[in-house]
């Protein structure tokens, strides 16, 4: 199996190198990268069968030690190793499958782009990085993967680097992620400080054997206050997750990341990279389980993100941004699940969301191609008859998103709400309210988008209407391929993932925190029937109803509401002022400090006094003492005699 794991990881890297570094043709670039990712996907299926269907034990091996620092009592090896258990196997499948679909889709989407080869190189590199991240068996490799996906994300957001907005967006993503990564790195440092190791097995093994000890360990960060080490560590690690998985207040980069090409939005900013934070917290469940405080923190942050980012989706008019805010909101749902100790539910939602959100993004991309890069939904409408395949897959995706049974999203979202309802953690009541009301909002903005794009009046201009293009094969095949799991993934996965013992050994939940009990489960169909008697489904139905009324029946009403609730509307349009505040306080503030330091420190002191000052001093001194060289012979002789006198005085007397 070891070789299979190596091939899974290295094939996309090889593809990226060939497509990126050698001056290959477009055809070679996409053939090689699609082939490489295809191999990874097929082998991931083998791994899935091996680990999950056949229930083989997890693979955990160190493949390569790069270097070791320290010796004697403390040594820290920098290793490359793989830990492949059920959690990893699922992530690998998701990553390689979505990546493969996006690779194929890209052939159509980027058809006319001059950066074709570069794009393929980047997305293959991303696949490699993401696999390194999920397959890691130690914190350092995790951090490597974490930074590598961040790098590729940066490169891809700014893919069209001549656009001012793209540069702004990728810089913003980079800087905001730096904040999160700083916390993450501190968290890793805390782990290293306390456990003296960065290997998962060693750290988690120690935790399980000395649970009491670890739970009660404290650290003195501010004199006089003792903090639980686990709380500090977990919150720091979670700050990393907040950056990568775009949780409030570090969410600001994700909507702007839509400046990148649409396939990227699907692959990186919806299906895989942004879920790395969720994956990481689930992976660290043995640590998080020891800190109620940290879990409450996670819960509240997730709930805020889930609800308030949903509101923003209501007022956006850019097709990709609506989907982006819906991603933020769904990431909030996953985080809420983690905070409620329902890691499995979080991963389950990650799993289903990857399919239907990638589907929605790629469908949005298909619409954008058809509309010749028009992204404003106010200029669309009635597209159903022009692009029926896209229409139907979008409907599937939207239904999955709002949690309509029996689509995939229904199961995972219901499970999360169920888990939150059963949690008695601080903040759980608020979270329950947030996720429940969030269902209504999700349904509202999703169907608003759906109706505005595919139904109603055709609001595009004449010229565009005549040139609406059909959907090419390379575009609709991935859409259909993604639609299938969007329908089916939920019903088949819920049993083993939530109520089975699939994640035993990979995810650790304290017994008292368990929300799902195998006794309560009688198959997916009964779970679905049970759903009809619960609030969420009716909230979703209400959302669809309202959307239908507002955007199909009474299309003038939204304008009226907008006028009536002017203040609320402007707050939403302003995105609660996060961007304005960041621009003013952080960006503006640090620029001011920088300018001041530059003026006073650099220009005045370093340049003025040290650099130019010393040069001027030497120059002045030089031009002064040159007059000692008078040209008069007796002066010269005098200097010699003086030298003689000094030497005699110093050394003889």
């Amino acid at each position, binding site marked *: 199996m070891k070789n299979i794991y190596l091939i899974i990881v290295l094939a996309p890297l090889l593809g990226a190198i060939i497509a990126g570094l050698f001056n290959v043709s477009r055809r070679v670039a996409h053939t090689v990268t699609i082939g490489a990712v295809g191999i990874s996907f097929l082998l991931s299926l083998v791994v899935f069968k091996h680990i999950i269907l056949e229930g083989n034990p997890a693979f955990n091996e160190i493949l390569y030690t790069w270097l070791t620092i320290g010796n004697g009592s403390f040594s820290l090896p920098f290793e490359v190793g793989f830990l492949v258990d059920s959690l990893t196997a699922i992530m690998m499948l998701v990553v390689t499958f979505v990546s493969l679909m996006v690779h194929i889709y890209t052939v159509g989407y980027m058809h006319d782009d001059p950066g074709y080869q570069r794009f393929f190189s980047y997305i293959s590199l991303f696949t490699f990085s993401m696999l390194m991240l999920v397959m890691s068996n130690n914190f350092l490799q995790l951090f490597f993967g974490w930074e590598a996906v961040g790098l590729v994300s940066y490169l891809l957001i700014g893919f069209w680097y001549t656009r001012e907005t793209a540069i702004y967006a990728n810089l913003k993503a980079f800087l905001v992620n730096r904040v999160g990564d700083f916390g993450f790195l501190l968290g890793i440092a805390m782990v290293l400080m306390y456990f003296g190791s960065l290997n998962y097995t060693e750290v988690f093994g120690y935790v399980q054997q000395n649970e009491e000890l670890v739970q009660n360990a404290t650290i003195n960060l501010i004199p006089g206050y003792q903090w639980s080490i686990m709380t500090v560590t977990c919150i720091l690690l979670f700050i990393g997750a907040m950056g990568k998985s775009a949780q409030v207040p570090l969410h600001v980069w994700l909507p702007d990341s839509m400046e990148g090409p649409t396939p990227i939005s699907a692959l990186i900013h919806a299906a895989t990279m942004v879920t790395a934070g969720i994956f990481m917290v689930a992976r660290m469940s043995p640590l998080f389980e020891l800190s109620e405080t940290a879990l409450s923190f996670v819960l509240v942050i997730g709930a805020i993100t889930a609800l308030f980012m949903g509101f923003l989706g209501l007022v956006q008019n850019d097709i990709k941004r609506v989907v982006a805010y819906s991603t933020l909101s769904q990431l909030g749902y996953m985080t809420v699940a983690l905070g409620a100790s329902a890691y499995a539910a979080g991963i389950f939602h990650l799993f289903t969301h990857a399919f239907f959100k990638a589907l929605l993004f790629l469908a949005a991309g298909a619409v954008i191609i058809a509309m010749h890069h028009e992204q404003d939904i106010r200029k669309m409408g009635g597209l159903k008859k022009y692009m029926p395949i896209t229409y139907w897959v979008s409907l599937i995706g939207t239904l999955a998103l709002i949690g309509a049974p029996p689509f995939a999203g229904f199961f995972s979202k219901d499970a999360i709400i169920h888990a939150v309802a059963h949690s008695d953690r601080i903040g759980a009541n608020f979270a329950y309210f947030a996720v429940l009301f969030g269902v209504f909002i999700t349904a509202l903005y999703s169907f608003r988008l759906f109706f505005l794009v595919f139904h109603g009046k055709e609001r595009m201009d004449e010229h565009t209407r005549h040139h609406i293009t059909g959907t090419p094969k390379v575009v609709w095949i991935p859409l259909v391929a993604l639609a299938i799991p969007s329908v089916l993934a939920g019903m088949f996965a819920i049993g083993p993932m939530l109520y089975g013992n699939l994640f035993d050994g990979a995810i650790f939940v304290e017994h008292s925190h368990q929300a799902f009990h195998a006794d309560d489960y009688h198959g997916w169909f009964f779970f679905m029937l049970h759903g009809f008697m619960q609030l969420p489904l009716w909230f979703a139905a209400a959302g669809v109803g309202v959307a239908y009324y507002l955007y199909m029946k009474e299309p003038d009403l939204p304008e009226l509401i907008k006028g009536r609730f002017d203040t609320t509307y402007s707050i939403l349009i302003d995105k609660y002022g996060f961007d304005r505040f960041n621009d003013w306080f952080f960006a503006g503030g640090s620029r001011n400090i920088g300018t001041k330091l530059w003026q006073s420190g650099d220009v005045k002191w370093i340049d003025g006094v040290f650099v130019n000052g010393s*040069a001027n001093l*030497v*120059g002045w*001194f*030089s*031009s002064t*003492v*040159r007059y000692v*060289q008078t*040209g008069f*012979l007796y*002066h*010269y*002789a005098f*200097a*010699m005699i*003086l*030298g*003689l006198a000094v*030497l*005699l005085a*110093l*050394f*003889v007397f």
Partner: protein
Amino acid sequence: MNLGFESTDIITLLPEIFLLTMACFILVVDVYLPEKLRHLTYQLAQGTLVGTLLLVISIYPSSLTLAMDNMFINDAMGALLKLVILAIVFVVFLYSRSYLQVRNILKGEYFVLGLFATLGMLIMVSAHNLLIIYLGLELMSLSLYAMVAMHRDSAQAAEAAMKYFILGALASGMLLYGMSILYGVTGNLDLAAIATNISDADSNKHTALVFGLVFIVIGLAFKLGAVPFHMWIPDVYQGAPTAITLFISSAPKIAAFAILMRLLVDGLSSLYVDWQGMLILLSILSMATGNIIAIAQTNIKRMFAYSTISHVGFLMLGVLSANQAGYAASLFYIITYSLMGLGGFGMILLLSRVGFEAENLDDFKGLNERSPWYAFIMLILMLSMAGVPPLLGFWAKWSVLNQVIQAGFIWLAVLAVLFAVIGAFYYLRIIKLMYFDKSEDRTPIEANMDMKITLSINGLIILFLGLMPDMLMAKCLKVLQVLI
């Protein structure tokens, strides 16, 4: 004193005897040569140098040999220094020929005086007796005074010669005075005998010895050009015709280094604590003065003069470490310095032509446009002088600094590096002028083919040896191990 000859003495002295004979022969021949055959003098002189060089190689000593009643020594260091001196004088004559020709001072005197000066240097290198050292020194110095004055019509040259002569006489007097005190205390002129005598001398002789030592060090410092006995250098370098400056700035420094080694290391090594202190002082003053004042110079010959002074400061760093490796580092430094100085003045000669002396910094403006190749050679030379890796000058500085640190004077090494940084400015300024400024002079560069080739080799050898410094360094270490 028994001055009896032995046949082996003749063999040991053969290079010097050959050089003397040929110098006299050329002197006579030159008088009878018609003007159009003047190049014959040049060829004879060069032939003499090559012949002497071959003779030095043929008697290259496998061990230390003394001759002429211990007055003359032939050892590996001496042989190496002689080879370098002869090679350098050969190149100096080659560079100078056309310069002298167009100024109508290509006379037999130049070559005859040059050969006599060379003879003086060889004698200095091989001297093993205070008197022989002095004789060699005076033979060299007197020839040099005359050479500076050779351009009779130039007031500047005459003034320079006068200054050089008077100050030189003063310094020689001091050196001689120091020697006489040494003789008075030890009763010996022979360096080995003096060394033995001093090592078991009682302490009341010490003061007298140090008193003499001060005068000897001053005499040496003058010849090398260490501050504050450097005053003659800028004026003479600037005043003398460039070809003569080239001669003065290269080979005589090596000879001066040789007598420094003979006197302080062979003869007075027991007093090393004292001369170490003096050299530290002179070295710091030289590095500081040389590097700082060079910045204010606009005349490139003067700038090179101050650069020489700062190099002398560095040279002393190795000697003052007072061990074999330190001497080897200094030997390495002086050879490196002469190669760089040779190239530097060679470039000035190359750019000069009838009625035009390329002696101002501005004359190097835009050299890259006029001749990219020679701009590149000059670039190598300047970077090497500044001590930029991987050029030879870097290794020279590195090895002396290394020895100073080994000897425990870390503060001195730090100071030396600081001065080297200041010094980098004026070398880099020339590079800036060559590459980034517009040329005001569009005259094409014309020179003899032999000069062009030699100058190119001169620059490239600095690059080449810089890439493989071990070759030269190993040689320096080897010859020093034979010493003592």
